[in-house]
């Protein structure tokens, strides 16, 4: 009987993978459900396995099933040899798309739980040291060194400590956390368990956004299986470590991706931002020391412990060590997951892997790092994708999402949308964010609707001051970074705001104050809101 792999990833399902899987089953094939390889433009990407080789068939519909089974359909060749994959450096995503997500035996055959096994034989301080040595930085966007955070929690004395995973991946253009939870959930469970051992935590919470029902279901199933195999609970794998892991589901609030809002939400309260200090590492969940990390950060830890911090640290670019899981999204011909060492130029990602726009029109800009990230024009596509390189150019890498726009994009509409989004999703605790965002939409409307340059000049000055107030005065990065897309849109595309040469000086004055944003990032310690 023929074995056919049909992805169960939500993206594949959104374009018909479940119907295709049913059709293969009805035709008598053995259907196995893997995660997605991340070549999303090919979904549903079906793989027919013969003698260990998995031949790929792209964009399969139920009507194609007979031809795929007889071999008369056109194949894209062996999937593992596809140049889009061979050109990548898959570390965190090594197993995603390859194995069945909740097959714990396959997980172990592919290197899973080697990291935990080694960690459990090590002193917690040595585990932390290994993570510090790897140079791993927070993949949620803030880029804080993971090992340093762990050391703070480890050295805090408390009767109870927590590990909290932030899986509230709300940034538009990002889907790596989702695909990892759906495609290789045990790597995250293993990473959280290693964190628990390293810092002395006994309970873990993962906060998954409600917009990800597939990820929630897969992750809950994976937790049950991990308990059944002794990888969670009391005395894990015969060691002294006891660790219980709980899923909590968000409720449609973007702000809960900000770590302190998430903590309040986990505690069963309104997801309002907390002032820092105290930092969550010392006073986090229910006032106890808490490790808060992003999904990708934690899912990378097993590999670091299995192969050693030095191995991971040998990858990367300047102070951005290791790999980054980029997500190519929006108006792009070949969208999906591209995991590479840090340092690839934007152009190689967008034009090389992405193949330009889906519409076939010229690229006008890419927005990097989610709704709070900058719009970057093609003139800057030689910039390397790394934390510092982008920060030095008034942009940020965020969670690695890259959204492509063609030349029909209206930059003033996107700037207005940034303010509108902030107004809708602000937690309301601080004034610059709550009120400033509403005023921001009004001011941008006045700029684009201005009948003469005098009015426009006045409003540009107001917008500039407003952006400065939000960047410097907001409690967290939501209000603090909303000026980033606004200012970058204004700086690179003044013509979309109706700005003629006469008003150029003012426009650039408004756009050039982007230094404020840097201070906002530093003050709030986070890029993800």
């Amino acid at each position, binding site marked *: 009987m023929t074995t056919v792999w049909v992805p169960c990833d*939500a*993206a594949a*399902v*959104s*374009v018909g993978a479940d119907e295709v899987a049913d059709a293969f089953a009805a035709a008598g094939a053995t259907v196995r459900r893997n995660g997605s390889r991340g070549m*999303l*433009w090919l*979904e549903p990407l079906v793989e027919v396995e013969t003698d260990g080789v998995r031949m790929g068939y792209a964009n399969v519909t139920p009507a194609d099933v007979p031809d795929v089974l007889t071999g008369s359909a056109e194949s894209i060749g062996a999937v593992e040899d596809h140049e889009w994959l061979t050109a990548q450096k898959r570390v965190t995503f090594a197993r995603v798309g390859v194995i069945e997500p909740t097959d714990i035996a396959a997980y172990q055959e592919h290197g899973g739980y080697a990291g935990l096994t080694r960690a459990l034989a090590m002193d917690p301080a040595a585990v932390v040291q290994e993570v510090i040595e790897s140079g791993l930085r927070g993949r949620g966007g803030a880029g804080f060194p993971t090992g340093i955070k762990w050391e703070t929690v480890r050295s805090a004395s408390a009767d109870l400590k927590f590990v909290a995973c932030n899986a509230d*991946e*709300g*940034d*538009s*253009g*990002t*889907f790596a*956390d*989702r695909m990892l939870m759906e495609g290789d959930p045990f790597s995250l469970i293993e990473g959280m368990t290693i964190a628990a051992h390293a810092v002395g935590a006994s309970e873990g919470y993962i906060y998954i956004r*409600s*917009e*990800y*029902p*597939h990820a929630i279901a897969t992750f809950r199933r994976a937790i049950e299986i991990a308990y059944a195999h002794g990888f969670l609970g009391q005395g894990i794998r015969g060691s002294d470590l006891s660790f219980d892991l*709980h899923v*909590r*589901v*968000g*409720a*449609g*609030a973007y702000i809960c991706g900000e770590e302190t809002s998430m903590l309040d*939400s*986990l*505690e*069963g*309260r*309104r*997801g309002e931002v907390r002032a820092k200090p105290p930092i969550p590492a010392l006073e986090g*969940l*229910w006032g106890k020391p808490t490790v808060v990390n992003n999904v990708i950060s934690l899912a990378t830890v097993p590999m670091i412990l299995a192969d050693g911090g030095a191995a991971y640290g040998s990858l990367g670019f300047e102070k951005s060590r290791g790999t980054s899981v980029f*997500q*190519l*999204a*929006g*108006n*792009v011909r070949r*969208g*999906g997951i591209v995991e590479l060492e840090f340092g690839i130029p934007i152009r190689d990602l967008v034009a090389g892997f992405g193949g330009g726009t*889906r*519409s076939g029109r010229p690229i006008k800009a890419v*927005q990097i790092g989610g*709704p709070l990230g900058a719009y970057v024009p093609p003139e800057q596509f030689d910039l390397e994708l790394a934390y510092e390189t982008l920060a030095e150019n008034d942009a940020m890498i965020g969670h690695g*999402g890259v*959204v*492509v*726009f*063609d030349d029909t*994009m209206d930059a003033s509409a*996107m700037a207005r*949308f940034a303010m509108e*989004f902030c107004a809708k*999703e602000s937690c309301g605790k601080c004034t610059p964010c709550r009120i400033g965002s509403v005023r921001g939409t009004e001011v941008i409307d006045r700029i684009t609707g201005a009948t003469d340059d005098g009015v426009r000049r006045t409003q540009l000055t107001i917008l500039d001051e407003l952006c400065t107030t939000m960047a410097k005065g907001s409690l967290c990065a939501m209000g603090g970074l909303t000026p980033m897309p606004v200012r970058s849109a204004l700086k690179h595309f003044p013509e979309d705001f109706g700005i003629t040469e006469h008003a150029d000086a003012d426009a650039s004055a408004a756009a050039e104050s982007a230094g404020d944003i840097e201070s906002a990032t530093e003050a709030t310690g986070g890029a993800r809101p």
Partner: protein
Amino acid sequence: MDDARQSQPSAVREHDVRQLAQRHLGERGALMPILHEVVDRLGYVAEEDIPVIADVLNLSRADVHGVVTFYHDFRRTPPPARQVQLCRGEACQSVGAEDLYASVTSTYAHAPEVEVREVFCLGNCALGPSGLLDGRLVGRLTPERVAALVGAESSS
């Protein structure tokens, strides 16, 4: 959503909500899981549920009310027969989500059984415009595909 759930006598509803809430009492931060379960099972959080949940958790009504109203997911009115949520995130906007949203909203403006709402990102950003149709994720949407999906499922 079947009518029985919406027209439940309040004494029965109170009993159900209390039982449901009590099952979560051992959990840390139980309020969010309780509210999710109320919406999953009863369709929405009714005004009369708030004092019941507050009583079980020993919270003030204001605390519970504050949480219910903070989050988009905790709807406070019975759900319509069909729910269409369309993504308005930047990635979906880059492939026409704003036009799609405007078109679908106007198509169902006078159809009380179909509710069209905006949502910001479903994590399907390479296959946009994306949406949730009665909770099911769908990609590469066009006005025609939305109409076909709404039509197909209401006749099934």
